[in-house]
């Protein structure tokens, strides 16, 4: 089993954190952004995991799911729902926010763009009243959302209003084995700036939709 990752790619943080937390035994191969690892995809797609059966997993969330599955944790309905929210609602806004914050130096606008999803997260955590997103134990969704939001939530200059529940949850996940380690591997302690090389190679994200009231 071989995991392909690259530095400064925020999606790689998810899979490295999940691998460290679960204690997965796999070769980690550091490649450059342009490397085409998955033979059936026209564009370079990282991270990717070459499975023992010879197939590749080419989305970070499915790789994280697989790591959790190998330790006997099938994703629950609630965890699936968070993952789908992350993929369809959060990621488009996050891509826009990263672009603004890192490449355009518009940190305040980025924070503004993230206000909707963060307040949804804040109220969901408050309503549920658990330590993590789905229960008092961490699920794959916690790692995925934590890693997705890490570049912003770990930045001392990031201000998106008071988010006590989000801050408490973020701290709980940060304390899990291997998470901060994975963050250092990808961001090298440079925070958002570590992502600029990766973001310059990405297509300009489309403007965010205006239907994120939640």
């Amino acid at each position: 089993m071989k995991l392909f990752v690259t530095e400064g790619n925020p999606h790689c943080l998810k899979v490295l954190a999940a691998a460290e937390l679960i204690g997965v035994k796999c070769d980690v191969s550091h490649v450059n952004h342009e490397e085409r690892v998955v033979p059936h995809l026209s564009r370079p797609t990282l991270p990717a995991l070459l499975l023992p059966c010879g197939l590749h997993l080419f989305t970070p969330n499915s790789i994280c799911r697989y790591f959790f599955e190998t330790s006997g944790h099938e994703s629950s309905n609630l965890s699936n729902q968070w993952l789908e929210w992350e993929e369809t609602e959060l990621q488009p806004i996050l891509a826009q926010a990263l672009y603004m914050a890192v490449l355009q130096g518009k940190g305040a606008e980025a924070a503004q763009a993230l206000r909707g999803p963060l307040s949804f997260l804040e109220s969901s955590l408050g309503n549920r009243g658990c330590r993590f997103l789905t229960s008092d134990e961490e699920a794959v969704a916690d790692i995925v959302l934590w890693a997705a939001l890490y570049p912003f939530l770990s930045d001392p200059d990031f201000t998106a209003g008071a988010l006590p529940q989000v801050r408490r949850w973020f701290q709980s996940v940060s304390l899990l084995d291997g998470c901060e380690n994975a963050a250092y591997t990808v961001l090298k302690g440079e925070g958002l700036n570590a992502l600029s090389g990766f973001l310059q190679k990405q297509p300009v994200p489309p403007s965010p939709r205006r239907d994120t009231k939640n």
Partner: protein
Amino acid sequence: MALRELSSLEKSLGLKKANKYSTQGDRKVPVLQNNNGLSLTGLATIATHLVREAKQPELLGVSAEQRAVVQQWLEYRVTKLDNCPKEEVKTVLKDLNQYLEDKVYLAGNNFTLADTLMYYGIHRIVVDLAVQEKEKYVNVSRWFDHVQHYPGVRHHLPPVVILRNRFYASAHH
């Protein structure tokens, strides 16, 4: 659209109790509400739940690897396929064609939920393909034809004519 898919999926799984659905936001994300107070949002999440409810876990994959592959294609469906801009359609077809070159179904040799949802999602694209394009993306066409003929799957969607003989002949070159 998603609601018709979910209703077709319920029928193909043989689920008797009808669930209540609504949609949310401009993207019309499906929301399931059942009598036990359960509420779930999102096409892939709800579809996975329905398969579990119908006690057909093999449709979600029979190993940890296959389960991850199935979920990956559900994710692909709701992220890439559903928002696919016109200029990206060819890349999607090309990549999928390459992927399916040595596979009967998306997760390998057995039919899974990934096939059902990718079939529902790609139908609007395949229905508009010219004959030459169907030939160009021969593996996609072959897979699509398998799935639309799979018992109980098609339901709300019109059949798409695929010239089967030619494809089966060319598959054995």
